[in-house]
């Protein structure tokens, strides 16, 4: 959600499996949300010029961490493990539309740009362990 990641499991152990498969560290924060360690302490407000998860906030705003990320133009780069301006992401991706979902190679890095020049802001995805495949039920662009 606007570069803020929230993982959910439908069966106990799925997130552990996900961590094992991808080597991505995911933690449960004090609000009961599975997310990346760098996002675990995300505050529900930002102050213009003050630090927000390692980046200088561009706006004073109160809202959910995903709201804060959107309003400040931030995304979480899980490769570099840092919060960055969305415009700094230059990764190109291909998104294929299927009947009921979209397919892309791996977990999409927020801010990635499609062949059409659209930049990914939000998405919802299901991970299929057996196929090692992500199916995206929703992808939003700017």
């Amino acid at each position, binding site marked *: 959600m606007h570069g803020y990641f929230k993982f959910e499991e439908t069966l106990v152990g799925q997130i552990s499996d996900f961590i094992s498969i991808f080597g991505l560290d995911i933690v449960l924060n004090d609000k009961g949300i599975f997310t990346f360690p760098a996002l675990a302490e995300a505050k*529900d407000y930002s102050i213009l010029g*003050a630090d927000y998860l390692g980046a200088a906030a561009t706006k*004073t705003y*109160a*809202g959910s961490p995903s*709201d804060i990320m959107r*309003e400040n133009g931030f995304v979480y780069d899980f490769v570099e493990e840092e919060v960055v301006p969305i415009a700094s992401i230059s990764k190109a991706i291909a998104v294929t539309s299927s009947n009921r979902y979209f397919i892309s190679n791996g977990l999409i890095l927020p801010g990635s740009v499609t062949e059409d020049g659209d930049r990914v802001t939000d998405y919802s995805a299901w991970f299929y362990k057996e196929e090692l495949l992500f199916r995206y039920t929703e992808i939003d662009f700017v």
Partner: protein
Amino acid sequence: MSKILPASCSASSVVTVEGKGVTSIILSAGKKSSTGVVLLEEGVSTYVTSNATDIHDLIATTNELIQKLQDVFTQTIVALSALDAVTTSPGSASAAIALVTTKNILVTTANAQYVLTKDLLK
């Protein structure tokens, strides 16, 4: 979602949160430095301070003014009593009149401070 954060406001109406200036609606006068809170509702910031010390100062200044007025009345009574006691020349009242004049100056000064307090509300 809204958030309440500790904040301060300078005498020049600059609201600061976590060391950064935040453009805010200031519900009080904002003409004297203060501490308070910022109510942050999405992108709108509103600063609220406690006026308790303003009121405390106002009461103290008003109290001082009243005491000065009491002195004026007392000295006026002394002066009038002296005048009432003489049958020919009221010359003995001149010292009392001087005292009343002095007290009147003090009342004027205290009143100026009273007005200043009003103009410096947080």
